């Protein structure tokens, strides 16, 4: 599903984004893609796992791999327990660990811009563009880009 298509549909109505914070950056995830938000779940580290795996999390009888956005951005481990968003991936559910989950913001497609060319390649591959808010920038995250099956490649 392409995001641009979605934008066209929603047009002027605005998109609801769940804002999450990792480090100093504010990110947004389209709320329709989030299955559930878990507050500070217990994670279990997986030895030898790729570095982006922040651990395993128990979710409704299943054991999900949790992608650590911090590790993906090269930020190092969080000192505190992180919150987790649950998404449906190509191989079952997966989680995304973030420092904190904030409020739901409504953004408008007219405020959207693609990734700036000065962004490093790693971030370019992870970020789905930027929304210009009144006082700051909101980096759009697309769960499809964070799917562990994609990251593992």
């Amino acid at each position, binding site marked *: 599903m392409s995001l641009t298509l979605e934008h066209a549909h929603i047009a002027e109505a605005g998109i609801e984004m769940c804002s999450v914070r990792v480090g100093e950056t504010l990110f947004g995830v389209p709320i329709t893609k989030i299955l559930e938000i878990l507050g500070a779940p217990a994670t279990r580290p997986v030895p*030898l796992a790729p570095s982006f795996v922040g651990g395993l999390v128990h979710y409704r009888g299943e054991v999900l791999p949790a992608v650590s956005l911090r590790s993906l951005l090269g930020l190092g481990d969080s000192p505190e327990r992180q919150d987790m968003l649950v998404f449906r991936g190509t191989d079952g559910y*997966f989680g995304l660990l973030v420092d904190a989950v904030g409020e739901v913001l409504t953004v408008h497609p007219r405020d959207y811009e693609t990734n700036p060319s000065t962004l490093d390649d790693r971030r370019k591959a992870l970020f789905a563009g930027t929304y210009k808010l009144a006082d700051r920038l909101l980096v759009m995250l697309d769960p499809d880009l964070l799917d562990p099956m994609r990251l593992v490649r």
Partner: protein
Amino acid sequence: MDELTREFLIESQEGLDRMERCLTELEERPQDGELLADIFRSVHTIKGTTGFLGYSRLEKLSHAGENLLGMLRDGKLVANEEIISTLLQLLDDLRAILQSIENDNSEGQGDDHAMIERLHALQHGEAVAVAESVELVESVEIAAETKTKKAGKRRAPARSNSAEAAGSEAAPEAAPKPAAEPVAGVPQQRAQVSAADSTLRVDITLLNQMMNLVGELVLTRNQILQATNTDVAFAPLSRRLDMVTSDLREAVMKVRMQPVSHVFSKFPRLVRDLAQQLDKQIHLELEGQETELDKSLLEAIKDPLTHLVRNSCDHGIEMPAAREAAGKNPAGTLRLRAYQEGSHVLIEVADDGGGIRVEKIRDKALERKLITQEKVAQLSERELLQLIFLPGFSTAAAVTNVSGRGVGMDVVRNNVEKIGGKVEIESRPGKGTTLRLRIPLTLAIVPALIVSSRSQSFALPQGALFELVHLTPEERRTQIEWLENAPLYRLRGKLLPLVYLSRMLEQGEDPEVEAGCYIAVLNADGRRYGLVIDGLADPEEIVVKPLSSALKEIGLFSGATLMGNGEMALILDPAAIAVRAEIGLSEEEEEEQDQASAALASEGEEFLLVETGEGTAQAALPLSEVLRIERIERGRVEHIGRTPVLRFDGVLLPLEDSSGLLDDVSQAAEMTVIVCREGTRHVGITVAHVLDVATGSALSEAGTNAVAAGVTLLRERVTEVVNLSRIPVLPGPAAGPIPGPIPGPIAITAELEAEACR
């Protein structure tokens, strides 16, 4: 009644029930193609199976019906009332025959000519006289009525019986039953509940769902058990929950179980046909058919197993002439054997054919560029055998009808591994090949030991676990030996390669803690090693949760689980760890088999292998003479003259101390004495270590055919057999109650020894 007939009955009755429903609907929509197709299928299925089972009456009748239904289905005829009534009559007739089969396994006496002719006539569009048809319908009704009456009457005594048995409560419920389901023409009172009534077909997805729910229940139970451990009032309740959960789990698992005979039963025919096709003589032996396996697993191994059987027939067993030339029975034997071993079911396909020649496999693999020259050089024979599981491998020189298209063993292995199983292969040139499928009993729940490494918990499946060794900090320092950088542990005198779990998982270097550790002795697919772990927790029945594919690539974990305390644990895969640690396949298994076969061949004697002194040569004691092994305190040894003796309950035991263990003060305070029988007296032998039990084979001296005495071939080593008769007889009265050695044998032994010395 055999399984096949029973299934046929259940299936047919279901088909007929469906047919009845459809026929009544057909009256309203006589041109509904789907309905007609459905009815046709029911009758067609019955016809197909009856021919096979040899029920000719059923076959003829259903065949006639099928023809008529075929025309209806193809639109050549339109169903009218007459046709439908006739079909209903046919249905009743079929039911009556099925009932008769169920009662006494015979189709019963009856004339179906009229029915068949009617079906025939309708087929050709000849309207049967209306009057006749009405009459017929009437007579059918009357017949049905009388049958119902009769059935009701006959049922009466049975009902009162069952009411008595079931108690008064059940009686009112049971009463209206006979009226609700008129039993068509039952000639005898049915003692048993009919097959269709006592079984139920359940959708497999529903069963899977039940299994998952039970899995969740087991998890919850584990958590409750741990939470209520300390609460006195709650403990009995949670124990009850524990029991009920276990029973429920077992019941659900049982529901899914089916005997392997379901799969085995088709092989006799397959093998017979293959043998004919290949001009071979193959004798098939089936063993352990009653072994049960989860239905879905049984389905999954059907094809792999068929493939293996084909392979064995085609490539394994040689042509009769070749067999005779090799001194074997011209008829080859193919043995299918199923048995349970712990939490696995093993299915063996063993042939006594030519075996697999390792060189051939190597050459083929090289030729097909499946492996490089350098790599081949490093592989052991057993590892070379594994090459046949590579995709695109086939050793058959010519592709035959039966097998050899290069899609084979890799598919077998993939299919078996998909369900968590393993394929093992053993082959000995000239003797045959055994392929073994190791299938887990159930997919969802495994007994496991929770172990910890660097304070993280892991689940170790108990299937591979053989024993646990605990080392104190002191023992850990001294008893784990290092050969360059390979840690080893002496387990009963044999070196066991060790794998440090924390190192394998790169959990950081040892912080050089003064802590003990455990060695879990594992045997995974013939790879024997010790896994060094920091600690042990309770054994638990764990519910296996699959890992995300992204994590499967790590390869060392077979899944994850939720433990009783609510924490998650990764499930270790012992075989994968062994492979990663480059633990080779141990020779032990083969050795044991070699010995077993050697024992069968030569009836070799069993010996206790001991080390008589520290670091000195090994010696053998005939096992048949060994009475017991004693650990004694050194101080208990006394001397009569220069003969060391031991006192046991007031009897004296002369000791043989060939290596001066008694005088060696550096030895520990305890020592091992093996008490043996020698003639009619008992003697003791001091040894440093007991090593093993092994079968020895006699050695004949070069040039003579005489069997050399005093030595035997143990584990490919010439080993001295302790001559018990040499142990001095105690002097004087001490020897009195215990008669001395019988002179004869000694003389002979002495003679032979003299000969051996020459």
